[in-house]
Structures are given as C-alpha cells and as structure tokens.
C-alpha cells in the first residue's frame, strides 16, 4: 500500500521487540466476540489512477459554476481566487501542520492568524477578531450564546432578513440550550419593526446586512433600540466583499459582528469548508469563543506570536468554556488572509465596485424582461426578483437551458408564500454575455 512505509520484515521485527507473535495479541483488550473477522464490506485498495477515474466521473456529474452563466449567492459567492493563493496554502508547512500549540516552531501559522485577526477587525470596523470559526452560520449561533453570557439574559430576536439557515442553526441551538428565541417573519423589503420586538428580557438582536434578500440595512437605529433595553446588536454578513462598499458593522455600532468569509480566498466547495469571521469590542474579549493569537516576545526579546487567553477555551475550562470549539478553519483563514493582503483596501474597494456594477447591470437587464421585477430599492451584489411563474420550476427550466439563475426563495422558506421570488447574485466572475444569456433564457421561459 503506497501510503504505508512498513513492510512484512519490519512488522516481524517490531512484533518481536514488542514481545508478541501476532498483531492480534496487541488488540487483546478488544473482547473476542466483538472483533471484526475478515475484512469490512468495502472495496479493497485502489491505485491512484483508479481513484482518479472514480472521482472524476462523479465530479463530471456536477455542473461546475464556471461552466455556465451562474447567479446563485444566498450565503456563498463565486469569486475569482488568485492562483498564488491556492499555491501558498498547499505549502507543506501550512497544509500539514497542527494547531500552533508549540509556538517556537509554529510562528508561521501564528503570525498569519495575527494578521488575519487584524484584517477582520479592520474590515468589520470592530476592535478585535478571533482566529476563525467553522462558518458564518455557526459563528452567528456562537455570537448569540456570547450575548447571553454578557447580558445574563436568554432571549434572542432574529430579524426576518437573516439567512433562513442561519436562523435554523441558531434556533436549534437555542432550543437545545433551553433558551428563548423570537424569529421575525420573512422580511423581503427590510420594513420590519425590530425595535418593537425588543424587551427587557432580550439579550440580543441578530440582523443581517445586506440581508438575505439583498437589502443593505441601517443598523444604527436598531443598535440604539437594543441598547436602550440593555440588549446587544449582533451584525451578520454573508458576503465579505460587501464590506468594501458598505458601512461596516462597527461604524453602525454593532457589539458583535459575525460573517461568512468564504468570498475571499475560498472556492464554493458545495458549502464547506468555509471560514467564519467573528469580531467584537475589546471589553467583551474574555467572553469570545475560539482561538486568539496574540503578540509577545521570546527569551531573546524578539517579537513573537502565541495563542493566548486560552483559559476561555475547552481544553482548559472544560464545562465552563465559552464554547466547545476546537478545530477551526485555519487553512481557509490563511486563504482569506493571503487574498486579502493581495487586494489591500484599494483592491477590495475596486472589487466591491465591480461586483456592485455587475449586479446593477444584471438588475437592469432582468427587470427589462416582461413580467419580472426587482423588489429591492438598494442592493450590493445580490437582489431579489419577482417572477410570474413559480420560482423553483423556473430555475429548473433555466438549468435545463444551461443557466443557473439564482436561488428560489421557497427552497429555504417553503411555506412562506414567497414562491415567486428568486435571489440573484452577480460577482466579478460574470461577463456581460452571461447577463445577456440569463435575460434571454428568462424571456424564453416566461
């Protein structure tokens, strides 16, 4: 077997040193009647060529986003990732290292995390960020628990503009933890009255901007309403590129900002692995979940980095930890950080402008199709259209014509009476031909 260096002679010599004649003697602690006899019912070993053949044939049965005009967003976005990013994250020293628990021989990872934290703090306009969570949805649920700890209250209010699956994740955790949750009705026009939902039992309000339907939201008045009742504002974003164009959560007064970082440096991967971003204000840092890299010096006085404030974490605090998270999204955070350091603020702002321009052009084209209207007044790179045909069926028909035209809202909100809505995203990866093809195909379907 190509991955196993020991051969029969090695094994015999090693068994002799251990003092047994057969490997099964070492496994003697497994009760005899519970041992597997023979081989498991899965195929035997395969060569590289065979494995490539099998997996390539499965891959070919998927329509890659890059092979068609493609307009799905809704929490995951197709962006161009510079070639150098993927090269660098495959460096052995990044790819095949563990969590940096021995800082003297992990300064590479630790400095990257310190830089990543700085970038996330700057983008979100917050004072401090951690070294990543699994993804945006789990970061959001963790933020809710953090707000519970900070306020010693147990009721979260979820905006109707929050990504429905983010709300599902938070609701699941709240139910299991015995906490209360108030989930506002789907709010396609950003017209809900969140302030009215906040009372003196509310720990936090969780509001996404741009929201699930693409509307940017002004969080400042929500923050004021929350703070007036002693509650915290958790700002959620699913498209990091929007931070290059829109007011940041920090500017609008968020106490905690969480989001999905996949857009920067990471491919779509059918939903994972992604990278959760988590930022807050310095005064709350001891209630923050997840790893943190901090600056210090070594015995020779040289600047160095190390995981710090670890007493918050499960390996030390056990049942009193701020979270159970251990493994995070280190390599995805590295990809994010490399892409971000290539972009810089100049590139980030330009990338955001291109995304916005492409979305505006797409909105203009689609609203030119008879019977189709764009419901958003404002948007960034994603908006919602209303169509005269049921959206799920329409999207299937478009797919057959080779256009993947967006997400039917009813897939995530099946019984909300929103069967005629499609959330549509356009990024820098879409060309004008793509947009024309979409408009033409849509016109044919209606």
């Amino acid at each position, binding site marked *: 077997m190509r991955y196993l260096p*020991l051969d029969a002679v090695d094994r015999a010599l090693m068994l002799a040193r251990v003092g047994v004649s057969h490997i099964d003697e*070492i496994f003697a602690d497994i009760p005899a009647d519970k041992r597997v006899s023979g081989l498991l*019912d899965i195929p035997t070993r395969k060569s590289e060529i065979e494995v490539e053949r099998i997996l390539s044939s499965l891959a*070919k049965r998927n329509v890659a986003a890059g092979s068609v005009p493609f307009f799905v967003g809704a929490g995951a976005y197709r962006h161009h990732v*510079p070639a150098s990013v993927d090269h660098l994250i495959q460096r052995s020293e990044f790819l095949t290292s563990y969590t940096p628990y021995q800082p003297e021989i992990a300064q590479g990872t630790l400095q990257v995390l310190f830089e990543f934290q700085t970038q996330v703090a700057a983008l979100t306009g917050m004072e401090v960020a951690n070294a990543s969570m699994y993804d945006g949805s789990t970061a959001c649920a963790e933020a809710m628990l953090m707000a519970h700890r900070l306020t010693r209250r147990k009721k979260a209010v979820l905006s109707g503009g929050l990504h429905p699956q983010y709300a599902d*994740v938070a609701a699941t955790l709240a139910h299991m933890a015995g906490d209360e949750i108030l989930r506002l009705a789907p709010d396609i026009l950003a017209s809900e009255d969140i302030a009215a939902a906040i009372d003196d039992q509310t720990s936090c309000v969780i509001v996404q901007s741009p929201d699930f339907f693409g509307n940017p939201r002004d969080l400042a008045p929500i923050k004021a309403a929350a703070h007036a009742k002693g509650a915290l504002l958790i700002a959620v974003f699913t498209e990091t590129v929007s931070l290059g164009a829109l007011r940041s959560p920090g500017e609008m007064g968020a106490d905690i900002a969480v989001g999905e970082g996949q857009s920067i440096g990471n491919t779509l991967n*059918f*939903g994972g692995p992604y*990278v959760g971003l988590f930022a807050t204000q310095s005064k709350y840092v001891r209630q923050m979940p997840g790893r943190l890299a901090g600056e210090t010096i070594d015995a020779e006085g040289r600047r160095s980095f190390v995981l710090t404030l670890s007493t918050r974490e499960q390996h030390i605090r056990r049942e009193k930890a701020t979270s159970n998270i251990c493994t995070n999204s280190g390599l995805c955070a590295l990809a994010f950080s490399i892409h971000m350091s290539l972009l*810089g603020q100049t590139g980030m702002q330009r990338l955001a402008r291109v995304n916005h321009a492409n979305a505006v052009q797409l909105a203009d084209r689609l609203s030119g199709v008879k019977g189709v209207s764009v419901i958003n007044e404002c948007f960034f790179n994603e908006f919602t259209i209303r169509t005269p045909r049921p959206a799920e069926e329409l999207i299937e028909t478009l797919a057959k014509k080779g256009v993947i035209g967006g997400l039917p809202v009813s897939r995530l909100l099946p019984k909300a009476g929103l069967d005629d809505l499609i959330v549509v995203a356009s990024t820098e990866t879409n060309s004008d031909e793509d947009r024309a093809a979409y408009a033409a195909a849509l016109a044919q379907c209606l």
Partner: protein
Amino acid sequence: MLNNQGRPTRSGEASTADTHTFTGNRALDMEEALIFETGRLDATGVDIDEPSAFVSRLGAHARNSEIGLPGLSEPEAMRHYVRLSRKNYSIDAGLYPLGSCTMKHNPRLNEKMARLPGFADIHPLQPTSTVQGALELTSDLARILMTMTGMSAIAMSPKAGAHGELCGMMAIKAAIEARGEGATRNVVLVPESAHGTNPATAALIGFSVRSVPTGADGTVSPDAVRSALGPEVAAIMLTNPNTCGLFEREIAAIAQAMHEAGAFFYCDGANFNAIMGKARPGDLGVDAMHINLHKTFSTPHGGGGPGAGPVVLSKALAPFAPVPYIVARGDTLDFVEHIEGSQAFGRMTAFHGQMGMFVRAIAFILSHGADGLKQASEDAVLSANYIRVSLNDLMSSPFGDRPCMHEALFDDRWLKETGLTTLDFAKAMIDEGYHPMTVYFPLVVHGAMLIEPTESESKASLDLFIMTLRDLALSALGGERERFTAAPRRAPRRRLDETRAARQPVLKWTKPAPA
C-alpha cells in the same frame, strides 16, 4: 589547473558560535515583518478593471470610512508567506507525534481530487439536479462510514469533531425529550480523562457534567459508571480507545449499564484510527460517535482546521438526525432540508457540511480499501507499542506494562529526581528536529507525554526517534540541565513569554503613534 582565482578551498575560520547578523536573519531562517508594516494602502496585487459608468444602488449605505489595509504585489505576497511557512514544523518535514491528533501523511491525490471543478466549483444551493455527483459521493462516504462503524444512520453536516459531539448530544437530547424525560434527565457522565470538548459540549446544551473517575489501570470500570448512574443521567461521553491510549475493555458492559438505566452512550471517536477494521462501535453498544475526517482520513489539519465531524447514530437515535440528509427519489438523489413532518432535531450549519473534506476522505478510503485501512490501524498500533517497549525502561508508564493502542502514554515520575519538567523535555525535542508529543494531557496523569506515531513512519524513522528520546532521557537522568531548560535554542524562536501575552493582550496590529 591551479586555483588562479584565489577562491578559498577550506572552511577556514568558521566558528560554531552564534553570530549576530545585521538583518536578524539566520541564513535560511528569515525574520519577516507584518504585512501592515510593508504594504502600502494604494497598492494591490490583484488587477481589476474599474467598472464602466453605472448608477449606484447603494443609497445611503455606502462606506465612507477607510478600511486601512495595505496591499502587496504578488512577488511581495509570495515572499511573505513562503518565509512565514518556513517557521512552521509540518508532517511533510518530520515525525509529528502529537497524541490524540493523528498527524499522519496527507496524500496529495486527495488535494488534487478536491480541486476538480466538479467538486470545488459547485454551489451548495444550485439545483440538486445539477449536483447529482456530489450527492452520490456524500451518500457513498456515508455508507462507508456506517459500514466501518456498524451503525445504522449518519449525520454528515457537522464541521469538526467538537461540532460532531454537539450533534450527537443534541440527538440524544431530542430522543430524551421525545420520551418526555427532557426535564428530568439532565446529567451527562464524563470520565476525568476526557477531552475538554466533551464537558464543554454537554454544558453548551444545558446538561450538567458529572465526573467519573478513571481507574488505576487507566480505564473506566462499569462499577464506577453504575455508581454514578441514576434516573437523572442522560448519557455518558466516553472516548474509545481512550485518551490514555488504552482500549476500554469493559466498554460493552458500560454500554449495557447505560442502556439499562435508560441512558445513551456517546463515544468520542477521536481515536478511531486505532481500530479501523478491527472493531465496530456499533457492536460495542455505542449510540452516537463522531469521526474526525481530518484525523482518521487525513483531510489534512491545515494549521488547525478545517475539519469535518460526521456522526454515526444507532437505530434509537436515527430518527432524530439533523437536516440536511439525502434521500433517493426514483433514480435521482435529493436533500431533505427542512425538519417539518419529521423528528429531526434541527440543523447544525448552513448548507450541507464539509464537501471539500468528504472528497479528500473518500479518496483516502478508496486508496486504502478495507485491507489498507485495517493494515493502517495495525501499523499505527504496532508503531506505538514499538515506541512504548523501546522507552519504558527509562521513562515511566502510568498504567504499567500493558499494550497500548495507537498512542503510548508516559508520565513524569521518571523525571522527578532531575528537577526537569515534561515541558523541558518536550522543548528539547524541538532542538533535535522533532515536534513534541502531546504534553499535560490527559489530565489524569501527572506531566503526561502522549506519543502517537501513526502508521506513516518507516521503521528507520521510528528507530531514530526512539534513539533520540533515549539519548535525551539518559542525558536528563545523567544530570544535564541546560539542554532542557534553555531549549529550544535552534528553533526560529526561543521560549515565549506567554504571561505577557495574556496580561496585556495585543490581538491585532495597530499603527504606531508618530514619534
């Protein structure tokens, strides 16, 4: 042919003394500034054309503040990250014996497969009719994991081991609630030797944690479990093989005791690498177990993630598995994404889980096959025992001279007379070119040193590692101190001032005030 250029032909006056350099670099070991200190706000390493004229639809939401992040050209970025990478230890460079972490070889075929556009460039919410290959791969992996564990159901979406624990414990909580015992069964038993994630997970969803002592032989006895049991107990969270590197011999009796008391058995599967094809958790009475794809199936660790933590479930817990899951409708596959009309307890994450990790894991599994996986477990266990018997005349084993599974555990009794600590010993390994073993875990052992070689080491590599540790041990026992207390001396950094880092946390770069 004389040496007409006068080029020196001898090494001359080269001294071994540490010498000061102008740059602070030590040849290939280079100092590297932060990107914020070298980049420029107006620079970017990504060429993007400005869009042609358009009417903004941002309204009053446009950002006016600076982001304040500099950019780097591609050559600058390349050099920055390559230099940083060289300050890291990695499995590709050397033996990485971190107990409980399973740092095995990461086949590059897995990386190549995960990057096929048909896997890397598909969106989680594009029509399922356009991602049938992805659903089939996920189903295939699910079936293989159920076969390997002998369990009847699986939840694929958890993002890492601890997330899988959370998923399994939520399924248990849902099953208990369905029985109408949600208010009364609220205690979870956790052995003292458990990973910190176990009690943290239980507490996260409102269980209180009751500790179960680890016996003198390093395992948990059914009697200890029985005496902690009561009608208020919902489950036990037990790692098997356990964190002391031992197979819980009485696991079936423990499972039976739990079930008789109306409680469930959660198994922490972090150490599954020891028993692939040797024992199936389903045969041992386990109700739920997560599998760390990034450990057992090498999807790699990536400096701390991402992982993937699918959870296998027993028949009793199967109805409560979270969404999404895959069903066949005729000859196509589809997701069930909503809980309505089922007992599914909810949702762990947006979308469907770590597809990128699924591809890598299945490439690893197909490459090994049933025969190779079994051989991998046997080699991992054999290598750990080889290390154990080769060191146990010098170093002390807390639980006597009994075979271990895939990791060998030592304590610090043997260091007592030397005045040196486990940490000193670990740091001295760094100077010898090794990553230290896991230290000070499990907590039930004083000064623990947990060595997990995995199946990826050749005999020559194991022999050199053993000889190195013997040399270090003899040197420690012989009264040498500086080799340990001053270590590491040859790493990119000496020991760090962690107290300073924690007392005045500096968690991001800030622009220095002008002088």
